[in-house]
C-alpha cells in the first residue's frame, strides 16, 4: 500500500468516525447539527471550547455524550466560588507507604482526563480559572514544582450561563483567547423540543454506543494537520483576522466604531485548523474558502473585545464577524 493510499484510507476513516460519532450524539442530543459539528471539530483539533447558553439546553449532556461515544476518560468540574485550583489540578497528599514511611504522593485532579467539563466556569474565582490556563495551553500541570503531562487527547469544554451574572467572575481576555471555539447553544425549535420530550419523558432511556475507541481517535489527530491550504485561502484567513482590528486601514466602519481589540494570530490558527478538519469531513484534502466561512464565527466571536459604544448599543461580536465576512464576499 502506497503512502497515498494510506493517507486516503485515514481520511476515509476520519470521515466515517466523525459521522458515526455525530450519529451517536444525535441519539441523545437532539438537533443543533452545526453545534455538534463544531464541537467534534474542536475535539479532533485538540482545542477547547466555551459553550454558552441558558440553563437546560443540554450543554453538559452534549459534552458527556461525546465522551461516552468516543470511550474517553471524562471528568466534570462544577465550578463554584469556593473551588480551589488544587481541586482542578490535583495536589500532593501525605500517604503512608508499606514500609511505614510517610511521603507525598501526587493525587491527580479532574484535569487529568481526555475531556474535562468545566461547568459554569464563570462561577469559579479568577485564581481557579487561572489553574486551567496552563493545562489548556501547555497541556501539562505543574504542582509543587513537578510538571505532569496531560493525556492525549485532551480538551476542556467549559460552559457558562450568559444571563446570570450575579456572583460570577467573567473570564479574562487572556483565558478567552485560549478557547478554540466559543459555541452558542440556541433554544431548540418546536420539532426538536417535541423530540426531546419524547426521548426524556418516556420510560425508555436512550443509551449511547461506543462509536470509536481511544487509539483510533489518537491516530486521527495528526491527519488534520496534513490537510493542505492554498496561499489564496490562507491570505483570506489572515485578511479576515486583520480586518477585525479597529486600527488597521482595511477595517470596516463598524469595526472602527465598536471594537476595542481584534482577534489574535491564535484566532487564525484556530480558523485554519478547524477549516482543515471540515475539509476532511467534506471529503477533501485541501481547505476551501467555504470551510473558512464555516468556522470564522465560532473562532472569532469570543476574541473580539467590544468597546464602550459597542456594549452600550448591544452590538454582538458575532454580528461584527458576520459583517466582516460579508465585506469580504463570504456572507
Amino acid at each position: 500500500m502506497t503512502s497515498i493510499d494510506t493517507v486516503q484510507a485515514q481520511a476515509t476513516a476520519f470521515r466515517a468516525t466523525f459521522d458515526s460519532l455525530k450519529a451517536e450524539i444525535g441519539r441523545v442530543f437532539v438537533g443543533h447539527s452545526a453545534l455538534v459539528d463544531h464541537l467534534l471539530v474542536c475535539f479532533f483539533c485538540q482545542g477547547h471550547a466555551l459553550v454558552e447558553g441558558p440553563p437546560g439546553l443540554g450543554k453538559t449532556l452534549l459534552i458527556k455524550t461525546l465522551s461516552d461515544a468516543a470511550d474517553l476518560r471524562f471528568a466534570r468540574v462544577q465550578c463554584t466560588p469556593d473551588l480551589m485550583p488544587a481541586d482542578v489540578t490535583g495536589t500532593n497528599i501525605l500517604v503512608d507507604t508499606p514500609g511505614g514511611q510517610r511521603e507525598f504522593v501526587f493525587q491527580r485532579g479532574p484535569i487529568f482526563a481526555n475531556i474535562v467539563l468545566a461547568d459554569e466556569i464563570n462561577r469559579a474565582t479568577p485564581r481557579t480559572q487561572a489553574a486551567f490556563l496552563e493545562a489548556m495551553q501547555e497541556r501539562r500541570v505543574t504542582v509543587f514544582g513537578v510538571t505532569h503531562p496531560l493525556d492525549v487527547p485532551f480538551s476542556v469544554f467549559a460552559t457558562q450561563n450568559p444571563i446570570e451574572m450575579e456572583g460570577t467572575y467573567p473570564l479574562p481576555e487572556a483565558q478567552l483567547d485560549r478557547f478554540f471555539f466559543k459555541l452558542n447553544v440556541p433554544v431548540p425549535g418546536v420539532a426538536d423540543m417535541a423530540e426531546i420530550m419524547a426521548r426524556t419523558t418516556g420510560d425508555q432511556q436512550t443509551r449511547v454506543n461506543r462509536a470509536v475507541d481511544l487509539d483510533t481517535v489518537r491516530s486521527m489527530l495528526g491527519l488534520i494537520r496534513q490537510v493542505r491550504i492554498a496561499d489564496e485561502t490562507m491570505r483570506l484567513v489572515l485578511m479576515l483576522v486583520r480586518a477585525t482590528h479597529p486600527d488597521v486601514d482595511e477595517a470596516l466602519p463598524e469595526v472602527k466604531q465598536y471594537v476595542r481589540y481584534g482577534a489574535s494570530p491564535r484566532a487564525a490558527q484556530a480558523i485554519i485548523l478547524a477549516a482543515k478538519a471540515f475539509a476532511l469531513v467534506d471529503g477533501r484534502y485541501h481547505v476551501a474558502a467555504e470551510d473558512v466561512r464555516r468556522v470564522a464565527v465560532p473562532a472569532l466571536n469570543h476574541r473580539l473585545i467590544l468597546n464602550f459604544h459597542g456594549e452600550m448599543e448591544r452590538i454582538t461580536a458575532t454580528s461584527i464577524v458576520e459583517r466582516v465576512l460579508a465585506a469580504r464576499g463570504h456572507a
Partner: protein
Amino acid sequence: MNDPSVTILTTVARCRVRMQLVAAARRAGITIPLAIVAVELFAGTSAVAPGPLIAIAGGALALAIAALPSILRVPSIRTSAAEIDARLRLQDRTVTAVQLLDDADPMARLVVRDAATRLSMVSPGRVFPFEAPVHFRSAVAGALGATVLFVVMNAVRDQPVAPPDGSGGIRSAGAAQSGRMGKPPSTAQVGEGAAPSAVAAQPLASSQTPAAREDLPIGHESAKNDPSGQTLARSESATRTIDAAPAAAARDVGAAAGARDSARGATGFAARTAAAAGGVSGTIDANPADGMRGTARYAAPASAAYRDQYRIASDRARSAVAQERLPARLRTYVKRYFVAIHP
C-alpha cells in the same frame, strides 16, 4: 491515466485562453457598437465620403481595442485556476492543486489527483461561454438609433429642393452629395448633353458623330480666359466667331453637367474636364480643382507616357480643328477639354 499535473496545467491553460477570448468578446460587444456610432458620426460631419475602408478600419479598431487588454494583461495560472474554481464550484480544488503540482507529499498528491479528476472532463467552452456584456443591449440600441438617425438625415438631405421661384428644379443626388461634402449646391438645372466621363476623358481628337455633337454642352469661348485657346486662335488663320451671348447659359449648363457627372461617381478629374468644357473660367495656370473644392482632389496624370500621349492627341486635335469646319462652340469645347486634361 494521464499525469494529473499535465491534465491540470493543460486544462487551466486552455481555460485561460478561453477566458481572454471571452473577455475580448465581451469588450467587443461594447466597442463595435461604439465604432458604428463613431463611423456614422464621422460620415455625418466629415467632408470625406464614408467608404467601406473607413467602416472596415473602424471595425478593426474596435476589435483591437477589445482585444488589447486581453493581450496586455494575461491572467496568471493561479488567477485562471481560481476563476475555474469559482465557475465550476470546485471549492478551491484547482488553485490548491496548481500550488501543489511539484509537492511530493501524499496529501498534496491526493489534492492534485482529485483536481485532475474533476478537470479532466472540463470543456473550456462550457466553463467560459460567450456572454453579452452588462451594457450590451444599451450599446446595440444606441448604435441602431444612431444608424436610423444617420439614414433619416441622409434621406432628408437628398430630397429634391424646389427653387424659390417654383420652377421645379431637381437637384441630383450627386449634387446633394457634393453639397454635403462642402461644395455649395449648384442652382443649375440638369441640362441636356453629357460631359465627358472619366472613362471618356481620353486625349483624343473629336470623334463624335454630328448628332452627338449637337448634344454636347455649349462651351464658353473666351480667349481672355483661355490662354491656350488664345494661342490656338493666334496660330490659326481661320477666323473664329466669338459668341458671347450664350456664354452665361453655356456656363450654367456646363456646371450642371459637371455636377451630374459627379453624381454618377465620376472622379474629380472627369468633373474637372466637364467644368472646363462647360465654361468655367479656368486657365491653364489656375488650379482646375478649384471648381471642385471640398471633393477629393484628383490631378491629371503627370507621367511621361501620358504627356507624350497628350501631346500627340492635342496636336491631332489642333490640326483637326484647324482643317475642318466646325462650329465655334465645338472648337472651344475641344480646346477646353485639352486644357482640362493637361498633364
